[in-house]
């Protein structure tokens, strides 16, 4: 098992294996996301209370969900960086932090645009919205810290510590709507209960969540490959890949 784990840390091995998955990730992701979005926009019934403005949910929930799960993935990678000093874990954190930043921004933006017609305001400093804004700043901080430190190894460790410190924000985001009075409603999806929406609404939502997940996987692969090529320029296998087009 440990052998497999260490093989996983080899950039060359990752480069070869990711190239095999990437077309599937991209095609599946686009297909699922488009299916979910078209279904949600044009075919799902409107909500009895909010009318058609609720259709923003089909991108708001996927981006918000992904923003948080990307951070959890980054935190797991940060543990691997700190404990096992695996290069690939650090490559992952650096490659996906900008993606997380964009996803968090999208969740906040779609939420604000949704809030205006339903709540009557673009923004309110309630616990859910504020903790999500903190997540945006955490992503920004991770990117800035990584750029600020030139030495690769010390940058990796500093970034990993920052990512780990920030992970306490994730349960706060998740449970803010249950622990405190907020304007934001509680979660529609819970692990233990049936979703509080009918299937013709939650199926398209699930499709777009899965689609965005796959697209994120593809994005992570492309960006990790970029980072690996940048770091391993001097190795023989990168030279062979660049000159001959294969690993």
């Amino acid at each position, binding site marked *: 098992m440990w052998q497999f784990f260490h093989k996983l840390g080899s950039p060359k091995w990752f480069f070869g294996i990711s190239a095999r998955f990437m077309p599937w990730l991209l095609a599946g992701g686009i297909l699922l996301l488009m299916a979910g979005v078209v279904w949600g926009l044009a075919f799902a019934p409107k909500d009895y209370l909010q009318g058609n403005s609720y259709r923003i949910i089909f991108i708001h929930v996927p981006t918000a969900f992904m923003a948080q799960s990307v951070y959890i993935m980054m935190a797991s990678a940060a543990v691997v960086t700190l*404990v096992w000093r695996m290069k690939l874990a650090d490559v992952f954190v650096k490659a996906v932090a900008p993606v997380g930043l964009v996803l968090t921004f999208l969740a906040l933006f779609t939420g604000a645009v949704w809030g205006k017609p339903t709540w009557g305001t673009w923004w309110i400093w309630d616990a859910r919205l504020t903790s999500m804004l903190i997540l945006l700043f955490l992503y920004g901080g991770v990117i800035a810290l990584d750029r600020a430190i030139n030495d690769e190894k010390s940058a990796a460790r500093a970034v990993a510590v920052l990512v780990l410190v920030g992970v306490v924000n994730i349960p706060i985001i998740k449970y803010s709507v249950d622990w*405190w009075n907020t304007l934001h409603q*509680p979660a529609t999806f819970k692990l233990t209960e049936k979703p*509080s929406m009918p299937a013709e*609404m939650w199926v398209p939502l699930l499709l777009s969540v899965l689609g965005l997940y796959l697209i994120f996987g593809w994005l992570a692969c492309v960006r990790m490959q970029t980072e690996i090529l940048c770091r391993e320029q001097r190795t023989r296998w990168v030279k062979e890949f660049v000159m001959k087009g294969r690993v």
Partner: protein
Amino acid sequence: MHPIRKKRLTVVLFLLAGLSIAVGLTTYALRQNINLFYDPSQISAGEAPVDVRIRAGGMVQEGSVLRDPDTLKVEFLVTDYSASVPIEYVGILPDLFAEGQGIVAMGRLNSEGRFVADQVLAKHDENYMPPEVAGALEKASSAEGKPMPVNAKPATY
């Protein structure tokens, strides 16, 4: 596992545990400030400060909305099913404002215990459904004489 890695892992886990305890205690101590609004029970128990800008939130009580025919003035009761607070507001209400619907109002509590709002925001719950289903549910519940139209569980306003 290598002993050095084991040691590093314990350090990381301790760091995380300590950090979460610290953040947990801080947010617990600040919970009054993190809460977006006071609910009607808190206000009627005198926990909310008088004549300071605060927010009050709750369910608009059924049958309590009084609209002034000449101006935009509205008066209604906000309830959490154990206490209720009268709110007055002059202005345009959000589209989702309705009896039985959750709201959050921003304004001041005056000395008579009335809440004078300058902003009213609508709050909705996590339940989504097509209009036909909502209509059918409402019919069913009014036939049984239940007050809650949407869901059997108490509303999370």
